[in-house]
């Protein structure tokens, strides 16, 4: 299945170096290095922004419409795709109304924190085709740490809006994020037991070795196949981390208006909305990297980015499917599922994985 696409950790050329080579910037010492890194970061940032742009105003509506037997946006451009442009102009040119009792610095900072923390996580994700910004040895911990900053932004948004719905939404968001962060990280840790490394390129390389070889095709050792239990746990915890059904309690449109984003309008709303979609994609990117073999897939190695984007969108489609198909859990159920269910299961998974790996070896 993935014959001839064995990636080797260590010999991967990262995007900044590649750009330095291509443009000749690597001859200019530190300044050239900084500029090449900036260009690479700009490319990745805009790639993710473009994906979010397609997902937020267009794909989400189309998918929900398909589930509820409607047509949704179809007037502007082919299949309504130009709604992306129309919507961005519309939202950016809205008046920015700031509630009278808002705590100003925190109220203004919250959307920036939410949006930029999600974007920063993509720095260590290997997206294939050489699009990999940085590969530090602590990659996996880094991405969990950065994704966790978003809850700070949500609390800031909830508290500083001086609105009761926002307050409740912010509190729910933090209770939910702390309840599901532990299962998420502990399940991720069960993958680290197999790889013995936190480096993202190493994690991907380990998964690309064949698990069972049938001669004509081989089943790769993707951790979703090696340890499907961990994969399901991680998917579930990830739904809660990004606040999507059945765990969209912090926003809960039928209970607390829109949760922490109730008082946000204009560009601030865009930033929070953008941050949420970036988080869904970041969650998808983490799942793709540590469970689905990263950019691996049939065909030459150079189309790795296509496979990677397909995998991310697969996870995105799953969240949208859940949104249309699964009802929301109550906030008390949410906490009990997190602490009494997923937490216990994730520790059971970690210990069982450790024992099985120990006995096999």
């Amino acid at each position: 299945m993935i014959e001839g696409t064995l990636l080797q950790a260590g010999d991967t050329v990262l995007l900044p170096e590649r750009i330095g080579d291509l443009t000749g910037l690597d001859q200019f010492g530190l300044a050239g290095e900084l500029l090449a890194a900036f260009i690479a970061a700009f490319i990745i940032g805009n790639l993710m922004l473009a994906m979010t742009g397609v997902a937020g105003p267009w794909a989400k509506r189309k998918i929900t419409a398909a589930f509820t037997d409607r047509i949704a946006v179809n007037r502007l451009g082919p299949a309504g795709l130009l709604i992306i442009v129309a919507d961005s102009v519309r939202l950016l040119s809205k008046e920015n109304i700031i509630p009278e009792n808002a705590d100003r610095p925190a109220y203004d900072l919250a959307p920036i924190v939410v949006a930029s923390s999600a974007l920063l996580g993509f720095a260590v994700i290997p997206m294939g085709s050489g699009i990999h910004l940085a590969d530090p040895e602590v990659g996996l911990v880094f991405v969990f740490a950065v994704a966790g900053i978003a809850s700070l932004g949500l609390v800031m948004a909830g508290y500083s809006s001086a609105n009761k719905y926002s307050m409740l939404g912010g509190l729910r968001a933090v209770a939910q994020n702390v309840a599901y962060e532990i299962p998420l990280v502990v399940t991720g840790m069960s993958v680290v037991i197999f790889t013995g490394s936190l480096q993202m390129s190493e994690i991907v390389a380990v998964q690309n070795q064949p698990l069972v070889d049938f001669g004509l095709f081989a089943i790769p050792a993707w951790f979703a196949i090696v340890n499907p239990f961990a994969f399901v746990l991680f998917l579930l915890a990830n739904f809660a981390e990004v606040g999507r059904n059945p765990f969209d309690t912090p926003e809960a449109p039928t209970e607390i208006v829109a949760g922490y984003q109730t008082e946000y309008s204009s560009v601030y709303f865009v930033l929070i909305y953008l941050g949420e979609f970036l988080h869904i994609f970041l969650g998808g990117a983490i799942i793709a990297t540590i469970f689905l073999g990263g950019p691996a897939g049939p065909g030459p190695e150079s189309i790795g980015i296509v496979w990677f984007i397909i995998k991310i969108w697969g996870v995105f489609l799953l969240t949208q499917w859940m949104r249309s198909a699964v009802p929301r859990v109550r906030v008390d159920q949410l906490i009990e599922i997190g602490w009494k269910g997923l937490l216990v299961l994730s520790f059971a998974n970690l210990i069982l994985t450790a024992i099985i790996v120990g006995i096999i070896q």
Partner: protein
Amino acid sequence: MNDWIAIGALALVGLLIPFGMMAVSYLLRPSVPETSKRATYESGEVPTGGTRIRFNIQYYMVALLFLVFDIETVLLFPWAVVYQDALAAEEYGLVHALGPMLAFVFILLIGFAWAWRTGAVQWARTPEQVEAGADRS
């Protein structure tokens, strides 16, 4: 090339994009101040009372629990990284590689079981549970 330069560059881009959008919006958007426009949203009613309301103590309880477990995950990550090497090394083997971690998690699980029993992770109680739990501290 240093990885952290590239990560820093993305952090910079991650700040520039929101600020760029805010600048564009600043140029595009109108400003029509009006007295009641900025009132706190409360489903269209006149807002009553402040926002700094009392909320459920349970939010505090789970935050405390999280603190303990979060530190635990930080301590477990190094173990997960060296686990295979420790298994392979002659002087350690399965018992020495796995045993201490099991003991560590077991101690934590005792604490968690206690928190579970005292209802730290249970938000809603049936009337019977409230009655039965009246003498619990």
